[in-house]
């Protein structure tokens, strides 16, 4: 801010001086309805944001863009650098402070007692351990229709197939979880199931009862999905979702 500007041009934080656009000017009853609390705060916040945006547009060097986003430099770059610095710092910290663990050299002539894939494939490995779910059919005299390993491989197909179907069931037009609580709950279900099935894959290493672990593997995703659905439904009320539907449905211009 230059020195020759008058003092009273400072940005005021009390919301005075905000001007609603002509086609959206609220009526007096609307103003009265959102006089206090969060609704008033929300109103003033968006009015100020809109006004600052309008001031920016009237500046002579303002370039109209067709994409609403932050520029790569400096915003995104500084943000990414800070995140990268955090993780590099965490790696340095842990490697510097924790005791070194140097195991015995691998013996190529003997199979280790515990064989595990890389951690990001634990979920698939866990699906191979669904033996108790493989049904024994009475018509086959208590025999299983297919081997446990075949069943585990088919389970992989079920999971991958469901993930492949999701984009066709839901087009993904929601931009916030509160817009579609059910599909957010489905997402949380999937994330939690990925974690629990990964823990089932290392059941040899889990310090808990294996049967309980197996039950929790399939129970916890439903529990967390239900909690997510309930919370998001409640948050919709807190956001006055029906009142503000127009705002929550806003999309960037094409």
């Amino acid at each position, binding site marked *: 801010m230059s020195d020759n500007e008058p003092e009273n041009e400072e940005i005021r934080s009390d919301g005075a001086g905000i001007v609603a656009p002509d086609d959206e000017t609220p009526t007096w009853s609307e103003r009265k309805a959102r006089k206090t609390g969060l609704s008033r705060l929300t109103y003033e916040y968006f009015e100020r944001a809109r006004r600052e945006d309008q001031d920016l547009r009237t500046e002579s060097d303002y370039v109209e863009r067709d994409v609403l986003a932050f520029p790569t430099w400096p915003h995104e770059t500084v943000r990414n650098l800070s995140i990268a610095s955090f993780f590099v710092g965490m790696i340095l910290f*842990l490697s510097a*402070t*924790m*005791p070194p*663990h140097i*195991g015995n050299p691998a013996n190529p002539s003997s199979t280790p007692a515990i064989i595990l894939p890389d951690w990001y494939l634990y979920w698939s490995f866990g699906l191979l351990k669904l033996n108790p779910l493989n049904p024994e059919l009475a018509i086959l005299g208590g025999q299983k229709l297919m081997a446990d390993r075949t069943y585990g491989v088919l389970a992989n197909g079920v999971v991958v197939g469901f993930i492949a179907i999701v984009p066709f069931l839901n087009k993904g037009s929601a931009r916030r979880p509160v817009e579609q609580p059910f599909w957010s709950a489905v997402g949380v279900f999937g994330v939690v199931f990925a974690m629990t099935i990964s823990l089932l894959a290392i059941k040899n*290493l*889990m*310090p808990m009862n294996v049967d309980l672990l197996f039950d929790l593997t399939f129970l916890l995703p439903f529990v967390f999905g239900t909690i997510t659905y309930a919370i998001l439904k409640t948050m919709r009320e807190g956001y006055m979702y029906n009142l503000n539907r127009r705002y929550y449905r806003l999309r960037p211009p094409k």
Partner: protein
Amino acid sequence: MADEFIKGLGILTGSGLAWLVLASWYRTSSFESTQQLIEPLSSGATEGLFNIIAVTLMDVFLWFALLGALTFWVLIPAGHQIMSALEERRNAQ
């Protein structure tokens, strides 16, 4: 409310990280053990001043992480709720 959440989260993660480092020295026989970080103290953990300080700090960090998160996520919000409920009841009378 958001302030109290990030205070509790900061205490839990920061203090928990310090506990993790100390427990990996004093309560971990092997990183392939299923009891790592919660094993009994390793031998020689109470010999020498620095070891005693570190073992004490390990417990301090653990309880600070647990009680700090409990305080900022449960106790303080519950206190606010109680205060506002009492306030409402007083105004209603």
